[in-house]
């Protein structure tokens, strides 16, 4: 492999990894606050992509407007999911909420098949984001490949600011420590949790939109694989840790791309490499790279 090809692989990995990171950030944030693995995250992500498809193709709105509308609609869907499927189970054992999340995931997927049909649909890619920039050595970068990591890092920064520098952020962190004590202190717990869900869904929408731009096709099951990959990335980085999710996503992207680059004969098994990574992390560092210490909650 010559240097140019390696640089091209490197750029591909950065682009894929930051997408995984972007999906994982929303995943990990909801877990960090609620201790709930939101299996429906990938499906909320899919809804975001569909909303942007409808806004830009069916209703022919400009891109920027379509993106804003899609984020708002997806956030509303996320809040509805919380209200209908998770809030009644707030006092129930954590496993009940987890099962409810799996149910929500199946429901949204199949609902989408009924409403949108299973046919994959095309997404408009703005030319300006897709025209490759040619670097020396015929290495090509599409502007979107730069935009995704930039958006991801800005969102991570904004999220950290929110969590550590604002009142609602303080309340969210308090809830993750002890929900009962927080309630006793006079914090409106349900509102804060709804806020966390809304934020998580908005992040999923952004990730879904970026994903649909990069891989211009929407279909009802498009959230499944990114959802699983984001889960691996979140666990790898330490579930609950926002910067960890980003780093986990990047590492996962590099593992996948480089496994194909260096072992072309095994190129059909890049998912196996991703899951191998998950198993190794769970064996040797169960709390992930930046994860907090494991503590038993009684």
């Amino acid at each position, binding site marked *: 492999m010559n240097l140019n090809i390696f640089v091209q692989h490197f750029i591909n990995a950065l682009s894929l990894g930051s997408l995984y990171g972007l999906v994982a950030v929303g995943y990990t944030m909801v877990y960090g606050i609620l201790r709930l693995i939101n299996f429906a995250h990938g499906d909320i992500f899919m809804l975001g992509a569909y909303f942007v498809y409808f806004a830009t193709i069916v209703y022919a709105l400009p891109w920027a407007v379509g993106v804003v509308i899609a984020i708002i609609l997806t956030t509303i869907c996320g809040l509805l999911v919380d209200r209908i499927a998770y809030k009644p189970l707030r006092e129930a054992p954590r496993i009940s909420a987890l099962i409810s999340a799996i149910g929500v995931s199946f429901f949204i997927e199949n609902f989408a098949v009924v409403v949108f049909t299973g046919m*994959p649909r095309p997404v408009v890619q703005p030319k300006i984001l*897709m025209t490759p920039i*040619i670097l020396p050595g015929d290495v090509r970068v599409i502007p979107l490949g730069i935009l995704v990591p930039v958006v991801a890092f800005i969102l991570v920064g904004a999220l950290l600011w929110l969590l550590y520098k604002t009142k609602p952020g303080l309340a969210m962190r308090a809830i993750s420590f002890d929900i009962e004590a927080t309630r006793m202190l006079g914090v409106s717990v349900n509102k804060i949790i709804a806020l966390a869900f809304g934020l998580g869904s908005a992040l999923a929408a952004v990730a879904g939109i970026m994903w649909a731009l990069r891989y*211009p*096709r929407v279909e009802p099951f498009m959230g499944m694989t990114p959802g699983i990959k984001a889960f691996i990335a979140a666990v790898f980085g330490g579930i609950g840790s926002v910067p960890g999710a980003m780093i986990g996503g990047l590492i996962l992207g590099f593992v996948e791309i480089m496994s*194909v680059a260096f072992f072309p004969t095994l190129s059909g098994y890049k998912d196996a490499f991703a899951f191998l990574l998950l198993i190794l992390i769970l064996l040797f560092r169960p709390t992930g790279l930046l994860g907090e210490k494991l503590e038993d909650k009684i």
Partner: protein
Amino acid sequence: MRKILAALLLVCMICGAAVADDEIIKVGIFNCLTGQNAFGGQLELEGTQLAHSLFPEIAGKKVELVIVDNKSDKVEAANAVTRLIENDKVNAIIGTYGSSLAMAGGEVAEKAGIPVIGTSCTNPLVTQGKKFYFRVCFIDPFQGAGAATYAFKNLGAKRAATLIDISNDYSVGLGKFFRDSFKKMGGEIVANLNYQTGDTDFTAQLTSLIAANPEVVFLPAYFAEGAIVLKQAKELGATFRFIGADAMDNPEIVTLGGDAVEGFLHTTFAYDPSMPEMNPVAKAFTEEWNKIHPDKAPNVNCALGYDCYIMLKDAIERAGSTDPAKIRDALETVKDLPTVTGMTTINATHDAEKDMGIVEIRDGKKTFIGIVKPEV
């Protein structure tokens, strides 16, 4: 659903009335009229019905079609064939779309000794070891060889690569046969990369392909993934040409792939309404089809459904009998029979040997550019 039930009921009544009648040839049709493959099955049925309306009599005897839905389900496929044989006492059967359905139904027909002609079931296993299963379509190895022949002879490529969906038997099989015959002709396979159904990022595979510098890449993908592969190849500045197979034969590929699918080639059966020079059978078929269905153009599935009936007609006429065993013997000796999808010859494994078509996407439209004779 109610319509189909009503149709079935009607069929039962007609059959009940005509059981003892020796002057009628009964042809059973089992195909997927509902379920996930209904799109293809319905078109094939309409093709067969068109042929029946043009040739309602074979060798002076009236032909009656008995239609049964296999619901795109393996269990239903076996039940459907059982019904046709035991209830309706058919002389021969036509069907079906989908190789796994054909295999399930084939077992039943094999035991009962009733000949079946498959429409578009292309997996080699459908007729393997079967005495009574035939088909009017060519099979996957043949198609892989055809793509290799076109790449080597017509495009003049010496260096080729394959990009295979490793979780799909169709793709794996085609890729293997492409590589084998490309090498046999004297070409070089410079790379073989894989992916899995449902993947969306192919940049790693494509970058490795670019590094290997082939002239042609064979991509036996389904259209949804294929379109994305073509898009990413364009973004990465790939200069090689892509050749696909009949699973890319879907108008949606242009909607999904946009201008990235321009110049993409794929193999398919030698029939398309856009063909400049049609054989007389295809011409007659297209004209008659347009009379009955002015609102929709015929496709390959319609043509194959039509061809099944033509092949059965030929066999019964040459056998001079409606005895299933004799029809079977005659089917084995079908040679250079003019059909919509070209001259059909049945080989030793009961598969059709016929010309293969090549389609190119030009200006966002499927354009039939020629016929290839695969050198296996």
